[in-house]
């Protein structure tokens, strides 16, 4: 039955690139890695690029006339080109490397707190987010609101796990300076309709910050199509190393807005009395950047592009359709979020009767099945649906229908165990 799923990738070939997928855990269980929304595994292509960087080219970037420094700089900057192309950025200078998506989002929040008019967030202005944001797209705005006196507002959720955009005109007002929201929910997989929100934001002159952490790894991402002002995502979820994130921002904004971290690399000239700043993206890259990690991310996007983001998306969609079907057969299983494969990514959260997710995850782990349990850094979603936590399975390009079956069978075993 599973072999007939349409749109699947050649996972047999792909899995050869990911040595960790051959791991055997707990004395004999084959690893079934379904925790991709937390972090993805890395192909050998990326690991080889890291090793090659350190073994042959490692140097600090931008400031050297020697060979290694020139090579390292060229590698680092060509990673920027690759990422710019991957998201169809109008200019490479719009791609800022950070340490993760959280830093990218905090960077924007801080810039807006220190900005001049018309961008400045301050008392009397409003920040709009949603109830399904990852904590990394909630807490920076809470901090900004606390520190400036601005008001924090949010879109709520429907019972079916969708963003409730019915009140968009009342939520986003002339006082709104910034709207920050996720493209894909990291807990429910929901894909949000950004268009009406961005249209309204543009009407009132508010900036739009899109958290694409769960989108960039899984679907084609075109920042020009998106029409947002800032887009944040993180390398480790898209086959890249840990320690590298991206902030894309519209050029004139990056030019106008003040710096965030101060230090080496981000300056033009420094005296003890004052400093001037380098043009973007360097203005936002204080200190020695995560050079090797950027290089690794560049190879990761090459890897993904070679397979094709639309094909990856189709593969995940097929798996999701199958997984939703299998999960709905399990008694007492309740999907938290959209319970079909429509307009959703390959991340599925659920509860299983009154068995606590911690227990579900533990018994699955014993069978080699790695899922995540808890509030997934999106506690307000759990509060919204009156549950303490969920079990979350999330798929990626290397997952197979057989692994969906393993999950479904594993859940039956969990039910029996706690029966």
């Amino acid at each position, binding site marked *: 039955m599973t072999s007939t799923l349409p749109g699947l990738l050649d996972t047999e070939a792909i899995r050869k690139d990911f040595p960790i997928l051959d791991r055997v855990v*707990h*004395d004999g269980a084959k690893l079934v890695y379904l925790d991709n929304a937390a972090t993805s595994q890395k192909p050998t292509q990326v690991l080889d690029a890291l090793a090659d960087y350190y073994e042959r080219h490692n140097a600090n970037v931008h400031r050297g006339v020697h060979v290694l420094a020139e090579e390292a700089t060229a590698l680092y900057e060509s990673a920027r080109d690759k990422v710019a192309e991957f998201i169809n950025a109008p200019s490479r200078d719009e791609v800022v490397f950070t340490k993760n998506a959280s830093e990218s989002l905090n960077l924007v929040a801080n810039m807006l707190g220190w900005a001049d008019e018309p961008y400045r967030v301050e008392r009397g202005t409003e920040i709009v987010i949603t109830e399904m944001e990852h904590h990394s797209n909630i807490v920076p705005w809470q901090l900004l609101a606390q520190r400036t006196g601005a008001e924090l507002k949010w879109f709520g959720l429907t019972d079916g796990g969708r963003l409730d955009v019915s009140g968009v005109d009342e939520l986003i007002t002339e006082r709104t300076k910034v709207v920050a929201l996720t493209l894909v929910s990291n807990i429910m997989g929901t894909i949000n309709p950004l268009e009406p929100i961005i249209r309204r934001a543009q009407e009132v002159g508010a900036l739009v910050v899109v958290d694409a952490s769960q989108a960039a790894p899984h679907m084609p991402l075109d920042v020009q199509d998106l029409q947002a002002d800032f887009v944040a995502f993180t390398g480790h979820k898209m086959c890249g190393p840990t320690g590298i994130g991206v902030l894309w921002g519209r050029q004139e904004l990056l030019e106008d807005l003040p710096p965030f971290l101060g230090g080496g690399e981000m300056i033009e000239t420094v005296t003890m009395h004052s400093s001037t700043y380098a043009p973007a993206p360097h203005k936002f890259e204080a200190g020695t950047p995560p050079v090797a990690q950027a290089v690794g991310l560049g190879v990761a996007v090459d890897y993904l592009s070679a397979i094709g983001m639309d094909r990856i998306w189709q593969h995940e969609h097929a798996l999701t359709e199958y997984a939703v079907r299998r999960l709905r057969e399990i008694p007492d299983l309740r999907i938290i979020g959209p319970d079909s494969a429509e307009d959703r990514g390959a991340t599925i959260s659920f509860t299983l009767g009154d068995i*606590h*997710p*911690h*227990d579900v995850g*533990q*018994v699955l782990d*014993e069978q080699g099945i790695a899922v995540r*349990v*808890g*509030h997934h850094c999106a*506690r307000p979603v*759990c509060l919204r649906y009156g549950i*303490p*936590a969920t079990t979350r399975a999330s798929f990626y390009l290397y997952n197979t229908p057989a692994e969906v079956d393993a999950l479904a069978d594993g859940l039956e075993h969990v039910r029996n*165990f*706690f029966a």
Partner: protein
Amino acid sequence: MKLDSMYQDVILDHYKHPHGRGLRDGDAEAHHTNPTCGDEITLRVRYDGETIQDVSYEGQGCSISQASASVLNELLVGKELPEARRIQDTFLELMQSKGQIEQADIDVMEDVLEDAVAFAGVSKYPARVKCALLSWMAWKDATAQVFSEKERGAA
């Protein structure tokens, strides 16, 4: 199956049939959460001098944290404070043993811990140790409140 070492029948029993669950009057209350998994407990203690009259609690969490609160209630109610502290210390020691403790030592602990030795298997799972300790930390906290208030009252 290795899992059985964590999910001992004793634990599953306490989970399904918890002792002394529910919030009743107390001298002090503590609310503890485990941010990694969202487990929560609200726990109250009632003392008569140094004698534990009641430990009542309410919360949500996994089998391990729920069973551990139930075992705590069963073990500590009626005990004198110094004895209760000794039990808590022993339990802490067991939970921090990373599954490295000898069966002989466990047998010795059993005199103190009774049903709670069943948690030995949990100590192998770092993420779950916090679950098992949640109610014990809340008890310690609530107890500290009671006696620091008494001291302040006395001073």
